[in-house]
């Protein structure tokens, strides 16, 4: 009986003895799984642009899921992804907006001028204070960079 249980659990375990679940490995796993899912649905004719969007969404989703709720940007990304998914599946245009107390850009005079651009770039950056925004940017940048490296290595592996 115990052996059966173990065997069931065994399938989910990583066979590598030196396996330590770190951020990069989790991200790679999620992304490759997402890619496999996309490829499995490939026989259905998809235009290149749609496939591009699918892959890009998978990339951002893997980033957001791996970061989880630890950061503001990942939470905002997940919310955005789920909203879009709901929109696409239900074809509804009414999105329930969460009421947030967002201070507009005018009321933050002490920030540098380009802070608003940064807010637009980083997901969920509109309602953060400036110093939190900087911290989120650093983390977002790191995740983006690891994602790009992952995709680049995949492309290299497949094309050569």
């Amino acid at each position: 009986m115990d052996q059966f249980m173990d065997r069931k659990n065994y399938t989910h375990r990583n066979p590598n003895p030196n396996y330590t679940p770190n951020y990069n490995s989790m991200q790679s796993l999620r992304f490759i799984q997402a890619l496999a899912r996309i490829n499995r649905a490939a026989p259905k004719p998809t235009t290149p642009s749609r496939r591009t969007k699918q892959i890009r969404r998978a990339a951002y989703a893997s980033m957001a899921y791996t970061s989880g709720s630890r950061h503001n940007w990942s939470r905002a990304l997940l919310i955005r992804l789920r909203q879009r998914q709901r929109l696409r599946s239900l074809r509804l245009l009414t999105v329930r907006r969460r009421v947030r107390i967002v201070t507009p850009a005018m009321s933050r005079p002490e920030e540098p001028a380009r802070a608003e651009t940064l807010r637009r770039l980083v997901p969920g950056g509109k309602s953060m204070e400036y110093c939190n925004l900087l911290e989120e940017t650093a983390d977002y940048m790191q995740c983006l960079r690891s994602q790009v490296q992952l995709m680049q290595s995949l492309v290299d592996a497949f094309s050569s």
Partner: protein
Amino acid sequence: MSASLNGNSASSGGPTGTGGDDFFDQMLSSLPSTWADLATPKSPWDMTGATNPAGSGEDCGGYDESALLASRLRQHQISGSGSPAGAKPMMLHQMLMSSAGRGPGGGAGGGGGGGANDPSGFFALPLSLGRDDVEGPFKSPNGTGAEGLFNGYGGGLPGAAQANSQPPFHHAQQGAPMPAQNFGGAPPSGGAQAPVAAASGGGASAPPRQRVRARRGQATDPHSIAERLRRERIAERMKALQELVPNANKTDKASMLDEIIDYVKFLQLQVKVLSMSRLGGAAAVAPLVANMSSEGQGGSNGAGGSDSSLTVTEQQVAKLMEEDMGSAMQYLQGKGLCLMPISLASAISSATCHPRPSVSHLAGGGGSAAAIAQHLIQSGPNPQAQPNNNNHVNPDGPSSPNLSVLTAQSAMANGNADSHKDSSSA
């Protein structure tokens, strides 16, 4: 008003200023001369005065007003509660003006020389003390600080005045009330610890909450403390960001922000481009992955398991070839494939096997694809290749599309366009 203080402390995470201690030390250093007769119950003053050697060298341009108020309170208490109300403001005002004018040396002493009573009346300190003259001479935002100070006294006096160690406050500025309270009849040893410990930068008897050491000569009111903390935090985060961004040789904050924005945009663009480029290999990825896996498993049985898409492609090509060669070629082209004779394929694969680096930097096309092609050629000999040879199609079973796929990729990568006698494509 005190709400604003609380707001300040909340936003800045509750740090408190101990800069008041600095100024207190300065003030105290000037005191012993005039307050010598009060020294017995107030030995901490002597101690702090003795341990504060650098008080003279400081400019009092940024002294703490709450410290002044606290000293005023001390003045008041020392002069006793019985002194006429009218004289008090004048005395305190005088003291403050003189201290403002002349700096720490002797200003307080001159003003405070008048009252030398025993500080027993601390508990009887009226809450409304000097609120008016606080706002009078010093029209500054620290007028609210004064009120908070007084409110804090009202709340904290009855029970906590006798505390040896520093009572935990939740207000923004704590440097002033604490030493004042220490002066106010608290046991001297306990009180001595507070300014000394604070002066030494938070030793073992440091209060449980965080205190920010203000640099000498800087303002220590709560707003500026919060501002300074915020600025420091922003600066350290900018530094961390600077390490992440590759081109981080800019020292200017504005240009650093531009650099950060550009880098984030660049990364997002890279994700987009990479997701697009994966597309070109989509048709080839599936067969390649399937074949590599089947090669790994099947070993030498040629191309063992063929993917469904392969057979589909195969059948499609065969069907098209029956109708028209050109359309078949176009179909293959659309998939990024081409047809070529086996001999040429083998020649190309052997040729591209060797100069691997040059191939790879051309288009990422050739190297291991050629290796795989060679492996397929070697492992999959097929006798039925003979009758179909004039068709220029690799007929050895399911591996044929693979071969043509791979070699087409390598051919395209190497820029070999002509590979046919009849109809050429690639």
